[in-house]
């Protein structure tokens, strides 16, 4: 057994530098939830652990001058869930975070870690896809902004380069009159992970006639990555929820998505579930938008 090195980093610059010098051996660890499982399963044998969990600069949750909600990559799911800033600006993230495992996991798991993992079942990516978030990465060449809708590339593969560290997640200002909702389907009421299907919807409607004027959506557990579908989102524009719209949306879900059957559910059933919960999330988001409040 080769010994493992451990370096604790205090700043993003140090982390980027250390990652560059560690090269292939470097393994970034934040809250350690995903890595801990892999270590216990003996699926990884890291040569050099770069512990970024104490970089305080990456824990901030704030709204910038231009109205962007900036969430540091190291904000834990529990911090997002209980953040007054998030509650005031983006309740979808509160609703989504409450669906993540349980508090004990949320206390260690970070929003950045969840995105970097690129798990098709993860909750945060689905919500961030609906919100059209931007991922800001720090690398040797400086900062790089990546639209989340291009971030998830393949199974557990993201656009983050091996020499980059995820710094923050930026959520553009939510237009007024908006509504959003997160809906997760699982066999049990809590703690399901590998076989969940989830949907996030953000939309805004015209205050006068109730037509949807802006829509974003994300789906989880229905393919090799978290999924964003422009076609479905665009189809909602200028419409109001009605059986015809949902029938059409359902058709598109079946055409656009390629869920993978697993030991619990067939691919067809997952498509069916995705269509149902996407409709439910859309209805709820729409009702919230119309009610003028996006709170539950």
């Amino acid at each position, binding site marked *: 057994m080769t010994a493992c090195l451990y370096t604790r980093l205090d700043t993003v610059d140090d982390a980027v530098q250390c990652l560059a010098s560690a090269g292939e051996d470097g393994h970034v660890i934040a809250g350690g939830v995903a890595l801990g499982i892999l270590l216990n399963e003996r699926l990884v044998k890291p040569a050099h652990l770069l512990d970024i969990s104490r970089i305080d600069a990456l824990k901030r949750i704030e709204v910038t001058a231009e109205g962007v909600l900036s969430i540091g990559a190291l904000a834990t799911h529990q911090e997002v869930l209980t953040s007054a800033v998030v509650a005031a600006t983006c309740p979808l993230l509160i609703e989504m975070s409450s669906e993540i495992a349980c508090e004990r996991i949320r206390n260690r798991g970070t929003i950045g870690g969840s995105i970097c993992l690129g798990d098709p079942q993860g909750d945060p990516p689905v919500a961030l896809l609906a919100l059209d978030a931007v991922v800001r990465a720090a690398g040797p060449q400086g900062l790089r902004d990546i639209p989340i809708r291009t971030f998830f590339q393949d199974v557990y593969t993201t656009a983050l380069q091996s020499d980059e560290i995820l710094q923050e997640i930026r959520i553009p200002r939510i237009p007024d009159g908006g509504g959003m909702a997160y809906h997760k389907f699982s066999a049990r009421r809590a703690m399901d992970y590998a076989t969940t299907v989830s949907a996030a919807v953000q939309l805004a409607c015209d205050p006068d006639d109730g037509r949807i004027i802006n829509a974003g959506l994300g789906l989880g557990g229905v393919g090799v990555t978290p999924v964003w579908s422009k076609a479905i989102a665009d189809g909602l524009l200028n419409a109001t929820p009605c059986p015809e719209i949902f029938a059409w949306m359902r058709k598109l879900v079946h055409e656009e998505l390629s869920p993978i059957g697993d*030991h619990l*559910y067939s691919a067809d059933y997952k498509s069916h579930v995705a269509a149902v919960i996407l409709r439910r999330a859309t209805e709820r988001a729409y009702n919230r938008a119309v009610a003028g409040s996006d709170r539950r």
Partner: protein
Amino acid sequence: MASDKKQPAGQKFALESAKQQALWQVQFRQIVADVQKQALGPNWTANSSARSIGLPLPRNDVLYKVRGTARYAANISMDGMLYGRFARSQEPHARILNIDVSAAARAPGVHAILTADDILQDRLLVGTHDNDTPILAKDRVRYVGEPIVAIVAESVEQAQQACDLVEVEYESLPVIFTPEEAITAGAYQIDAEAEGNIITEHRHAVGDVDAAFAAADIVLENTFTTEPIDHCFLEAQAGLAFVDSGGTLNLLVSTQYPHFHHEQLARVTGLPMEKIRVIQTVVGGAFGGKIDDTIECASCLLALKTSRPVSMTLTREEVFIATTKRHRLKFRQKLAATRKGHLTALELDILCDGGAYRSYSRVVAGRCVVHAGMPYRFPNLRVHFMTAFTNHVPSGSMRSFGVVKMAFALESHLTELAAKIGISPIEIRKRNGFVDGDATSTGQVLQDVGLLKTLAEIEPVYERRKRELAAVHGQGQMNPGRKRGLGVACLGYGIGYSGIRNPSTARLAVSADGFVTAFCGTPDIGTGSDMALTQIAAEALDIDLGRLRVVSGDSTKTDDSGPTSASRTTYFSGNAVCLASEDFKRQFCTAVAEKTGCLPAQVRIDNDRVIVRNEPLAFEQACRLIADDVDAIVGYGKFDPDIEVDISTYQGNAYPTYTYGTHLVEIEVDEELGSVDVVRYWAAHDGGVIVNPIGAEGQVEGGIVQGLGMALWEKIVRQEGFIVNPHYRDYLLPGAMDSPGEINVWFVETYDRTGPFGAKGLAEASIIPAPGAIAGAISDAVGVWPRGMPMESEKILELMGHYSTDAATSATVKGQPREPR
């Protein structure tokens, strides 16, 4: 310390010293007295605390469990302790051509390596009923996960790394993954002794089944399936083996049956019985999954080989892939009834996947056959039960030994029949349920049957909820797309082994300072059986509870009284304790009489005092009086009811008594997704007189949630012999949010004339009705009958026919959608 030969009574619970424990016992007794005071009200006084049956008393072992000092096997450490791990088969069925351990032997920290070649051929095979399972695979592996090599090293990690270096060369053999393939002519014979790959086959028939079917008004016939289930006790199998200074091999182990390991170890090690001691540690759950050999023989052989203490703990993944499962089975059930709702015939044809070795397959089969049709009168009945070898991990015993699966089918048909003839699911059960004087299919005439009492308890709740739900549905108060339903199911379950004698014994001893120890063979596996036995002994002796300790699960200190399984501990060991108490009192009073110069008849124990002539003495005073003779007083009791079923005719008394119950469940189905939420639950049980109501309630609630788990979510999934979900991540155990928000448990008043203070026992059986009740509730809610467990959302939706690509056009957006659950 583990090697301490003189283990003070009660010390097995905790890692602390006896002195520390004594301090905590003072606090514990205070709490117990408090509970007694609460329960007995104004009648209670400090020295009238002897009454203990029926009190919701806290458990002694729990004192240590809430403090983190309980002595689970993996929590015990000794100087010089080594850690053992297994290298396991990666093939479902293969000849072993070569085992290369040379790299493993060179790995850091390795002390010893054990393969089958290190064990004499006639000592290699172990098993509870048949010695058919190699401690380590020799020439052939029969399932993925079968242990091949055991390695001890300085640390768990080193042992694991060495195991990873073991290279096994295999030659694949034909694989058999279903019992149907196994019994096909010409199939590869998995076990040399088992022709046709049949582990066990039973036929049982009563009456004229064919005539009954021909004459029947209504016949129901369906094929039912169930999936393998894991026990999922949270504490994996664990043990610590060491040789003490006196040369005795000690095994501290998490088990349901220490005496079984004791007997096996004597054969496997060649040591005389008295040179081996197996002590049960605190057991972190068992449910039938800790009565086979897993780490026991291997850890002992490694301890002997290294002369060092060897600790072995399975990983969760190993528990899933390499320890016994509930049988997967497929069966056809055909039931006949009259238009009036009287059952006339039942036919069952059952085929089980027994896995690669026998384990408890025969026991499961025997119990299922005897329980066919229970708890209802079937004048005509025919059962064919067959279990076959496959290349899967062995199937073994699990809570109810298969009866829960039979009940799933039978209770489904009962409810369906009720609907067909237009009576309530309660009524159909009342018309056919066992009453005193009825005979079982083995001809046993029943007494003290409380089944109808449990139905009577549930009936008003059912009728009320039925009306309320009809109103809710009728007034459109339900969220759109959601339907509620009610389901009813009953149970009848025999206490103890099926159709063979299975005595239990107890010994009572007393110390000069007034403490009484009850030595019982059946160990406490986390259920609180030691507490129940304490209460029975206190009641029988009429002394204060605080004077009593139960020592159980120690091969040296207690007799072999069989395993703690089959709901037998309260009834069998409780009766043994009662008998021992009579013997004890006789000896004790004689001794006091001799010292005080009166006749034994003039001495009696009363309310924690000893009355000599008419003079009351404190109990400890009396003990001091006879201090010189106390060691000679050993009250002995053996309870051995006359149980025998003739295997050729299936006639005879199968069990000394039976426990009964009725469950009612309310569920809500999401019609678009097919998913089921369990909303409320009611359970009425006849367990005779309840020794400890809070313990009994906990057992019933736990059994219900286990039953819901197998009904709705749990299944082991295999592909080509590999278990694909060997983790809690993918094997779905019900959590707090999945359990019903409300479980109401009642115990009906029955008194079993043969039980200790009227008790029967009930814990295990509470799992039995849950799946059948759920199936009935699904049918009530959405009109479909799932015939396979688990009743997953996808399957329910398929049955509903809603699961097609264009169904959603019917979706409405009226009303407020329900928030996600």
